[in-house]
């Protein structure tokens, strides 16, 4: 087959949907992408590609893709939209948002995104240029996705850390400094179907082939737990207790790295005292894990050199997620596995480049402390939660949805929704969000396809470019890389283009400083000494330079982490803090502790009598990214049905046969799923994949592509957030019962 050109670029949504990083080759003929392959010369993915990336052409050229701006002409929910021009769309949006700003203040508009993709930059630029502090992952209960872990890591060691798969070195596993982890703890994740938080999931498989042994902690058997030396089948939401018992064993048996702990940490005595409350015997009762297994896992992890922990989003969704993350973080610090080859290495973006200001420190540096403080005056949740006020720029979702309904302390009048299918995706208590969004005077949705959210509430829909149609860059750990457009589809524009244009209208100063988007990119890329075009022409990606703050290892010894250039860590004490001064400052317990899930056999036994099963939502599928891709034929046929995984004993007791439709219910509602009877789930849980809606069914109200029938978040409450405001969304710990569904013979 002949091609006109082959464009090398970076995968970062839209397309595969994910957190991106893979090197991609786009084969173009007659201004159409006709083939997508992995880039074998790229250090991140080495030519490999997931099914979602390989199905990109079906996604880009889908007959139902939105390819021009739309405005709603019928009532909300009617699905009646007509084509309009970009000028009309942007003029309407500008005029309506100006009216709302004049009448109610800029804070009455929420700028809503989904998970962290190529969106943080565009949306925060737009929100702040408009003047709203309310940049939010609307619906994400407890803001329980990575931010709790990031906050815990920043508080404990002044930096983030990730499992070392040599991803910061161009030579990868062949780097002479690198060592493969002797033991990997996979804590609450199945890395094969997804690539979370800038981490290519199959790097764990690469390590296994090179000798890494596994300890897996999960309520459900995965491919990894079946291959593990030790599998701890944990009660959902009790990860904090397990981490504290492991800390207990490691300290009391003196398995910790005494030299590292004495040189680089403070607070061991306090931690010892706290962890002593969590004996393996007591924690065995809490977690359902045998006492002997808890002790053996702690010993196996602590004795391995090096060892690394790879953790997943259920840590954030645990009750008091920020303290659970802190406890797990303490494990790699106690054992001296921080920033050593094959341990948990400190992760900074290459060259320190970020697509947008990330931490409070960066916000201060970029916008001035004054501006950030003014943001906090009206930012939803900032008053209630010191950690929300002081760590990152998010508004708090549980407080926000209440405010959308109550109008207190000030009214919310409009939502800008981009990269987020709120009602078909992350929103817990879907009905509550449906009600809240219906109250808005004005809703804009920027997306690629109609979905339950566009159908229910959009007034204007803007068509968004896929990764193959956009110019952007990705800076998430390493490498730093550019995203290069290959084609144009319809009138679609990138999230960056759309938001930059609108941001300039609200903030002319921005346009003076950055006449074009490229000028803005060049400014962000300044630390590299290269422009966007130079980086693209130099191959499109760069690993962090040697002997820099963004390149491992042992940077604390070399004075590369602290602003003052002294050895140590970027914490108040300059050391790793087992008892966190930041947590204390934020009014939180400085030490980790365990808290029962809001609904559980211990906390709500009366509810358990009625609803005896723990619903764990969110198990990943390699062919879907959250609520995306149900409409892509090559992908849907690999995972065709909204299922519930049920243990054979539970199925038998409830008269449920494999493949039959079942009702899953609690006091908040009922949904239906197709039973997959399998021994991989614990007999006291059911696993219910999230993000399901049925694009092949009626989109108009009241059906909204079947969300009331199949979306498991209908059953999940809001308002269970941690004391810190971050973490604790009950997506993994909601009690339910199951029964054979009546009358549905599909």
């Amino acid at each position: 087959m002949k091609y006109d050109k082959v464009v090398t670029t970076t995968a970062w949504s839209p397309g595969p949907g994910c957190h991106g990083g893979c090197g991609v080759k786009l084969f173009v003929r007659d201004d159409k992408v006709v083939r997508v392959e992995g880039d074998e010369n790229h250090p991140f993915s080495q030519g490999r590609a997931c099914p979602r990336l390989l199905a990109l052409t079906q996604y880009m050229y889908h007959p139902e893709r939105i390819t021009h701006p739309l405005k709603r002409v019928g009532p909300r929910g009617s699905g009646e939209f007509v084509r309009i021009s970009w000028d009309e769309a942007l003029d309407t949006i500008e005029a309506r948002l100006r009216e709302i700003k004049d009448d109610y203040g800029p804070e009455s508009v929420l700028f809503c995104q989904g998970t962290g993709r190529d969106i943080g930059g565009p949306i925060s630029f737009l929100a702040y240029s408009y003047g709203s502090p309310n940049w939010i992952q609307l619906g994400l209960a407890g803001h329980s996705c990575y931010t709790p872990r990031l906050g815990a890591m920043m508080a404990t060691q002044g930096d983030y850390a990730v499992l070392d798969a040599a991803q910061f070195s161009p030579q990868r596993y062949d780097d002479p400094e690198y060592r493969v982890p002797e033991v990997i703890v996979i804590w609450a994740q199945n890395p094969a179907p997804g690539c979370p938080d800038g981490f290519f999931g199959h790097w764990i498989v690469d390590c296994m082939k090179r000798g890494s042994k596994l300890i897996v902690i999960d309520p459900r058997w995965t491919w990894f737990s079946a291959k593990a030396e030790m599998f701890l089948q944990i009660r959902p939401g009790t990860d904090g207790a397990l981490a504290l018992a492991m800390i207990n064993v490691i300290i009391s048996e003196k398995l910790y790295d005494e030299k590292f702990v004495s040189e680089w940490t403070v607070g061991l005595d306090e931690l010892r005292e706290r962890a002593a409350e969590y004996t393996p015997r007591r924690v065995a009762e809490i977690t359902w894990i045998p006492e002997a297994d808890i002790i053996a896992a702690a010993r196996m992890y602590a004795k391995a050199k090096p060892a690394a922990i790879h953790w997943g989003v259920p840590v954030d969704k645990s009750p008091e997620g920020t303290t659970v993350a802190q406890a797990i973080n303490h494990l790699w610090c106690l054992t001296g596995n921080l920033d050593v080859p094959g341990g948990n290495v400190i992760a900074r973006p290459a060259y320190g480049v970020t697509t947008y200001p990330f931490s409070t420190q960066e916000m201060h540096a970029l916008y001035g402390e004054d501006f950030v403080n003014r943001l906090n005056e009206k930012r939803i949740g900032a008053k209630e939660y010191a950690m929300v006020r002081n760590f990152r720029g998010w508004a708090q979702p549980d407080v926000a949805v209440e405010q959308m309904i109550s109008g207190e302390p000030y009214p919310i009048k409009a939502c800008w929704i981009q990269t987020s299918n709120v009602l078909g995706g992350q929103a817990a208590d879907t009905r509550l969000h449906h009600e809240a969004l219906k109250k808005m005077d004005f809703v804009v949705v920027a997306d690629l396809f109609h979905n339950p959210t566009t159908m229910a509430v959009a007034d204007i829909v803007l068509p968004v470019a896929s990764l193959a149609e956009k110019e952007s860059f990705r800076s998430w750990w390493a490498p730093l890389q550019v995203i290069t457009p290959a084609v144009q589809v319809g009138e679609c524009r990138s999230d960056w283009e759309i938001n930059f244009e609108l941001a300039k209208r609200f903030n002319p100063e921005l346009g003076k400083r950055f006449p074009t988007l490229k000028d803005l990119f060049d400014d962000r890329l300044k630390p590299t000494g290269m422009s966007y075009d130079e980086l693209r022409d130099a191959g499109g990606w760069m690993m962090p330079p040697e002997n820099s703050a963004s390149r491992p290892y042992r940077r604390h010894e070399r004075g590369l982490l602290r602003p003052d250039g002294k050895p140590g860590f970027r914490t108040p004490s300059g050391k790793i803090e087992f008892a966190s001064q930041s947590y204390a400052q934020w009014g939180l317990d400085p030490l980790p502790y365990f808290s029962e899930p809001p609904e559980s056999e211990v906390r709500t036994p009366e509810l358990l009598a009625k609803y005896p099963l723990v619903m764990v939502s969110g198990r990943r599928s390699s062919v879907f990214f959250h609520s995306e891709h149900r409409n892509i034929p090559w992908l849907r046929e690999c995972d065709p049905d909204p299922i519930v995984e049920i243990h054979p004993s539970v199925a038998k007791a409830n008269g449920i046969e494999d493949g039959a439709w079942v009702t899953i219910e609690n006091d908040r509602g009922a949904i239906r799923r197709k039973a997959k009877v399998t021994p991989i789930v614990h007999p006291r849980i059911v696993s219910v994949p999230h993000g399901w809606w049925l694009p092949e069914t009626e989109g108009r109200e009241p059906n909204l592509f079947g969300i009331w029938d199949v979306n498991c978040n209908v059953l999940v409450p809001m308002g269970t957030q941690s004391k810190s405001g971050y973490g604790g969304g009950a997506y993994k710990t909601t009690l339910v019962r199951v029964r054979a569904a009546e009358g549905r013979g599909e």
Partner: protein
Amino acid sequence: MEKQGLLIDYEFCTGCHSCEVACKQEHEYPAGKWGIKVNEFTQQISEKRMEITYLPFPTDLCNLCHQRTSHGELPACVKHCQAACMTFGNITDLVASMVKKPKMVLFSPK
């Protein structure tokens, strides 16, 4: 020319479906048509042991990506396999690899 085949190290196949979709794209097969298909085998062996095994199976539609390999490219499934557990080559070479490690399957599709 020597006969060629696909060696699958199914110890490391995670069932990610990349081979299936890579194959459909390469051969422009619509949904419902498979040049390779991943099979899953799950059984509880004991209270402490679960078998979860995946194995991709090349169907009658597999031509070993002759159109790619004839000019030095890897078959689409082999190139994109996220677990890097598939090898394309001469059968005699693949047999030699096979004797060195358990949990391998050798396919000679055509």
